[in-house]
């Protein structure tokens, strides 16, 4: 898990970090060392914040809550019980984790500014309560940390000793951030941030993922808070639980680049010293100088490079770094792709998905009225019906995105047991893969990463997932595009990616929602071949489609839905010539006209 120091990207990072530690010590100037300590502390805070604000995309402006809890926990335990902050900080971590759980769970579904507002409100409540509980928090007056010097008390005579500790904390936080970024969990966070629905369709539980991120971030923030409290030796509610601090933390991460590992550190290194120096130089003008600098820099960054330093320049810089000599190249191995597994089809023809009299009402409208259908293993079942017939509503109930008001949807697993999942991720785990009518790629990720996200569900490690992803790409003709960003694919490519990502979850049932719509004739022909190939690999397919010729050619059976009910079920030829079906599509006038 520790980056190999022989690779260029790794050794450049190591050198840069070493400079952050050694250069200030070399100057022996207490001011420079103090600056370096502040940089380490704020870089660590910004990196911890980035787990929630960047990776999970939830803009917390109340992160000082955890900083405050950390400071107070360590401070109070030293003061009242003589417990070393090295122990006390873990008490803070425990409390912060609990508080994060309490805050995260109810605020999960709030978006953008409303999440920020809620986080500010929690911060205010915490500050007011600390002010109020004077008996043990010392109230608004704050508390002084006893000046017992020594490693045990995290209080040193020499500034450079603080810098060593601060740097150590920064390393721990960075290592965790890097591990998250490259792990399955990190990809899940990005997926949930980008498109929650698509993430659920590939088996990710957004609630669990977001809460985990909130708790990890809170614990790290609390740790840094404990250290910083010991460094400042004075803790008061108005600065420990301050909105200003919360904004600063988030700001450094934004300036460096949200959702990147290097961003928050870079943002802090660039902006914090400027603001501190401005405070020194312009102190004649009064307070507020550094705050003014922060505000102006923040607006400028948002206007001129909203993706932050790393987002804007990162690509060019990494290219340049990659040109440096790589001492580890010889030892790198490429992952061979697995051959496409052909599954046992002993149970072909048996029911695999049963829909029994499902009903769904939206107010007075019966969108689904006692629809029953059965999908058999190894078949392609086409679902057709005029616009507004309720096909997509049925579809959403088959994949857990809507809960039927009545009736059941059950699916048979590989061992032959029937289950009735209740959530989209439950359906995905039970073996139902789905696509969306309006494509939902994780636009900022590459095609390979999109597929990896699907593949993670049923694989153990990244290598295994990558092998599965590559074999799916082969099946869906995406291999040449694996390293392309999903946002730059063509419509046809996006639709194939949509199918491929569902396939990467190794589904037993694949639900396709209008995957042929909007394709050019050549792409339609390719898609038809591909869907057959998918079926032949052992996946049962249920498809909604408007393109009648293609549906007739592909489907083994067809179900016609009209006005929320099953109008007709049968072989393609039977359905195509059915009077009722023709009436549903073309109205009674048409049949009268034909008859006369």
């Amino acid at each position, binding site marked *: 898990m520790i980056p190999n120091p022989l690779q260029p990207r790794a050794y450049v990072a190591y050198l840069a970090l070493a400079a952050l530690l050694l250069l200030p010590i070399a100057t022996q100037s207490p001011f420079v060392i103090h600056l370096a300590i502040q940089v380490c502390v704020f870089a660590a805070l910004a990196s911890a914040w980035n787990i929630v604000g960047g990776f999970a995309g939830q803009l917390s*402006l109340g992160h000082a809550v955890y900083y405050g809890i950390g400071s107070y926990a360590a401070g109070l335990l030293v003061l009242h019980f003589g417990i070393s902050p090295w122990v006390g900080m873990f008490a803070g971590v425990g409390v912060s984790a609990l508080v994060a759980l309490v805050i995260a769970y109810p605020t999960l579904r*709030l978006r953008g500014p*409303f999440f920020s507002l809620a986080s500010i409100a929690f911060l205010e409540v915490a500050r007011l309560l600390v002010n109020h509980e004077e008996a043990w928090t010392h109230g608004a007056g704050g508390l002084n940390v006893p000046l017992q010097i020594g490693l045990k008390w995290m209080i040193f005579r020499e500034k450079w000793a603080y810098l060593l500790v601060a740097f150590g904390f920064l390393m721990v936080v960075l290592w965790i951030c890097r591990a998250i970024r490259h792990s399955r969990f990190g990809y899940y966070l990005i997926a949930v941030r980008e498109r929650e629905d698509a993430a659920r369709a590939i088996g990710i539980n957004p609630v669990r993922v977001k809460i985990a991120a909130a708790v990890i971030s809170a614990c790290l923030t609390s740790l840094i808070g404990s250290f910083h409290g010991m460094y400042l030796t004075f803790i008061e509610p108005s600065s420990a639980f301050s909105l200003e601090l919360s904004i600063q933390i988030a*700001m450094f991460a*934004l300036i460096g680049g949200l959702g990147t590992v290097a961003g928050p550190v870079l943002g802090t290194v660039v902006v914090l010293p400027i603001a501190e120096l401005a405070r020194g130089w312009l102190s004649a003008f009064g307070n507020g100088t550094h705050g003014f600098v922060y*505000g102006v820099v*923040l607006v400028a960054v*948002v206007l001129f490079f909203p993706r932050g330093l790393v987002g804007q320049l990162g690509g060019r810089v990494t290219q340049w770094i990659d040109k440096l000599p790589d001492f580890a190249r010889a030892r790198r191995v490429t992952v061979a792709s697995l051959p496409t597994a052909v599954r046992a089809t002993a149970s072909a023809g048996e029911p695999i998905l049963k829909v029994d009299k499902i009903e769904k009402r939206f107010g007075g409208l019966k969108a689904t009225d006692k629809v029953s259908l059965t999908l058999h293993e190894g078949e392609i079942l086409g679902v057709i019906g005029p616009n507004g017939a309720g096909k997509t509503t049925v579809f959403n109930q088959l994949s857990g995105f809507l809960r039927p008001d009545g009736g059941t949807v059950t699916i048979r697993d590989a061992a032959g047991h029937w289950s009735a999942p209740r959530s989209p991720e439950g359906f995905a785990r039970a073996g139902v893969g789905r696509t969306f009518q309006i494509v939902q790629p994780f636009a900022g990720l590459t095609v390979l990463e999109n597929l990896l996200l699907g593949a993670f569900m049923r694989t153990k490690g990244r290598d295994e997932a990558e092998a599965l992803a590559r074999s799916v790409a082969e099946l869906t003709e995406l291999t040449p595009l694996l390293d392309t960003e999903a946002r730059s694919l063509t419509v046809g490519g996006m639709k194939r990616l949509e199918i491929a990502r569902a396939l990467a979850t190794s589904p037993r049932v694949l639900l396709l929602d209008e995957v042929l719509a909007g394709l050019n004739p050549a792409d339609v022909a390719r898609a038809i071949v591909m869907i057959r190939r998918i079926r032949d690999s052992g996946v049962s397919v249920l498809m909604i489609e408007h393109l009648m010729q293609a549906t007739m050619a592909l489907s083994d059976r067809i179900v016609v839905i009209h006005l929320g009910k099953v109008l007709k079920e049968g072989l393609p030829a039977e359905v195509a010539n059915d009077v009722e079906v023709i009436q549903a599509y073309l109205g009674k006038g048409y049949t009268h006209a034909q008859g006369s």
Partner: protein
Amino acid sequence: MSLLLQLVANGLLLGGAFAIISIGLTLIFGVVRVVNFAHGEFLMVGMYVAWLCASRLGLHPYAAVPIVVVFLFVMGAAMQRYVIQSLLSADAHIQVFATVGISTALLNLALLMFGADIRKVEFAFGNQNLSIGSLTFVSGQVITFVVAIVVAFAMHFYLTRTYTGRAFRALAQNRTAAALMGVDVNKTYVFAFGIGAALVGIASCLLTLQYPVFPTVGTYFVLTAFVIVVLGGMGSLPGAVIGSMFIGLIDSLAGFYVGPDLKEVVYFVIFLVILIVRPTGLFGLGRGSE
């Protein structure tokens, strides 16, 4: 009993002050769909301008209303034109950072220019004590309340009876469709932002008489305004007025019965419960916060 009545009256009068601030905030959110975290600093700037008018020109804050309103209209319009406009299609978090950045810059600019001292204006008019039966009021509070009600009704008529008002509402519902109907989106947004800020200008003149002026004064009021606007439903005018009265009452009653240092805890908790349980606001108006 008379104590309770007095507390209720105080609460409603305080609600009047909250209302003018909240109407501006909810208007900006309703039309431009941007949560303006710098709203409190608009108020602070307005109060400083009113204080300057009073201390340098000897103008009564009520007489300074036109100056402050124009000043804040220009400031709000400029903020929309030069900052928010280019971020309209950006992610929500970018917009949050933009307004937070402006808020931080303005707050610290005030600290730079005026220091952290607390400034006050001294005028007799607006500070007389009135009494009705056993109830006592300060005249400025009553004036603020009356102005708030007048502004709310004026805003309501403006939104329902004028072309620009209808354009605001059309934009609030669907930006693209409004543009197709010939509404000049950018111009209307600039105007809406300006009006939202101008309303805060009125509020700041009224409040300068009753509250001291200092750089972080806006933060105190704006957090309350956010509570009110979420409570009443973001973007809803009646919601903002009713929410203001409600929070005013809670402020007054909780301040007495729960404790002055915990009254804010009470309404922040209410705020969180509303956000979590009923994100569309208490009155089911406005759009959700999800």
